[in-house]
């Protein structure tokens, strides 16, 4: 087979994937950018509105609530989820007897489907007979109304996400196993303590992996509020758990305001992009300079 024919055949193998990306990502993304400036309801042809959708959204107190809730959610969950995944990976990365079972237990909640996970937590957090309040009451601690109280509902949903950290855990586990043994031996010879060692050797070497986990988690956390909010609270009580994805769903699919939904969608793109840039800044680059 000639070189050119071989190359052409390779592009043919690539074609289904590229067509899929075009139809499922690039066209929809371009379309939402276009529709954001129109009044489209799915039936009548779209009318050009200029920035009217954006003006309307920014003036809408519900949108402001949803953005604020989503931001609080990301700010609360991403650092905690990262720290939990890192702590678990540091504890369980060395081969020891029984470590496989511990890793499996830690990973278990991550594979539970979203709908099942939301229903389980709805029951665990039930104020009257949910196991969590039974335990707190049994220990003589104050019980909370969790999802029923507008002051704690968002934090209760945030709490549920702290156990689905399997993806970050596995990535950091892989990162830790890549660190050559020489480092550990050299540090042990120098008499480095455990914490000094983690602080000065493990963490810097793990930086690129941590950045990967944090960025992935930012994107996931900005969106994975939809299923819990829809099933556990419906956005309530008093809009305490109204997040941007739920608002987009209600605007577009319940009220058929596709133009307005597209404008919100465009803002999500910009918002997530800004969050990623900010994280990149905080980490001081992509962190690959000191990678092994």
């Amino acid at each position, binding site marked *: 087979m000639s070189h050119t024919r071989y190359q052409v055949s390779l592009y043919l193998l690539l074609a289904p994937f590229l067509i899929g990306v075009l139809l499922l990502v690039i066209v929809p993304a371009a379309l939402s950018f276009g529709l954001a400036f129109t009044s489209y309801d799915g039936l009548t042809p779209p009318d050009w509105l200029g920035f009217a959708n954006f003006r309307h959204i920014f003036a809408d107190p519900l949108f402001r609530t949803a953005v604020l809730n989503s931001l609080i959610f990301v700010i609360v969950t991403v650092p905690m989820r990262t720290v939990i995944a890192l702590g678990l990976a540091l504890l369980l990365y060395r081969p020891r007897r029984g470590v496989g079972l511990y890793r499996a237990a830690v990973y278990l909640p991550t594979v539970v489907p979203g709908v099942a996970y939301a229903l389980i937590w709805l029951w665990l957090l039930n104020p009257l007979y949910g196991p969590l309040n039974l335990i707190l009451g049994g220990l003589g601690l104050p019980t909370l109304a969790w999802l029923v109280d507008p002051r704690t509902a968002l934090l209760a949903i945030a709490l549920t996400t702290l156990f689905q950290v399997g993806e970050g855990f596995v990535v950091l586990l892989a990162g830790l196993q890549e660190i050559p043994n020489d480092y550990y031996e050299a540090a042990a010879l120098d008499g480095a303590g455990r914490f000094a060692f983690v602080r000065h050797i493990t963490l810097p070497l793990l930086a690129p992996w941590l950045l990967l986990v944090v960025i992935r988690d930012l994107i996931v956390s900005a969106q994975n509020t939809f299923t819990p909010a829809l099933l556990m609270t419906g956005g309530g009580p008093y809009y305490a758990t109204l997040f941007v994805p739920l608002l987009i769903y209600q605007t577009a699919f319940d009220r058929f305001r596709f133009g307005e939904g597209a404008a919100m*969608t465009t803002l999500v793109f910009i918002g997530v992009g800004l969050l990623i840039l900010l994280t990149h800044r905080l980490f001081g680059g992509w962190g690959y300079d000191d990678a092994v």
Partner: protein
Amino acid sequence: MMMLSNRPRYQTFVFHLLAASIALVFGLPALWVLAASLRQPGTPPPRTIEWFPDPIAWGNYAQVFELIPLGRYLFNSLLLAALAVPLTVLIASWAAFAMAQLPPRVRYTLLALAVALRMVPITALWLTRFLVLKELHLIDTFAALLAPAWMGSSPFFVLIFYWSFRRIPPALIDSARLDGLGPLAIWARIAMPLARSATVAVSVLTFVQYWSDFINPLLYLKSESRYTISVGLRILQQLDATNWPLLMAGVVIMMLPIVLLFVIVQRAFLVEGKIAGVYGN
């Protein structure tokens, strides 16, 4: 000297104590869910944590199937996953094989594309994907739920295959090319047999993705006859949100295949250190 020889044993004890308590926190709720699913419906809720309901109401599991057409939903979910897994493996591994073989400049562009795709917020695509699918007359069909498989279900799956294919010695592929084999033949006879663990990983993750999928069926289906298990659980919740034994029975039924699958493959994923092979660079 005693101190020195005792220290590792003491450390091992602390490690197991810590790790076991964490594992308990992560795993215990699964047992509570099981216990809750076997409680007699209609009886007053327990005032303490209940481990063994008395009497054990096995009938709850039969009752869920009578209350909603759960058999139909399970069949639909199974069919969806059974179609999605081979399609995903095919398209993701083809794309990855081409990526691994194309000249460096094209390869890096495609790698950057795959990484960028991982960062696209999927919620921002719901609405306009709906419009694209509507234009293709795919709304309320299984094809709409299968659509992500056309791009390999997740750019991550393409990357998993790519990492696996890059580790194949170039000499092996070059000699096959000298024998006159085309890309499809090399992919089938050399690349795929050498990427077994990547294939297993992608298959398992794809199964879980489609079995768990809630948002695509919610957005793109209308006919009840096509509903999947996740939409079924939502319907069960809307029927009677306070019947916890039946809801938890539904949850157990939905989780069972995934937990079983996970138990079967977890050695490969977590124990044998193959994670670096799957996730590593």
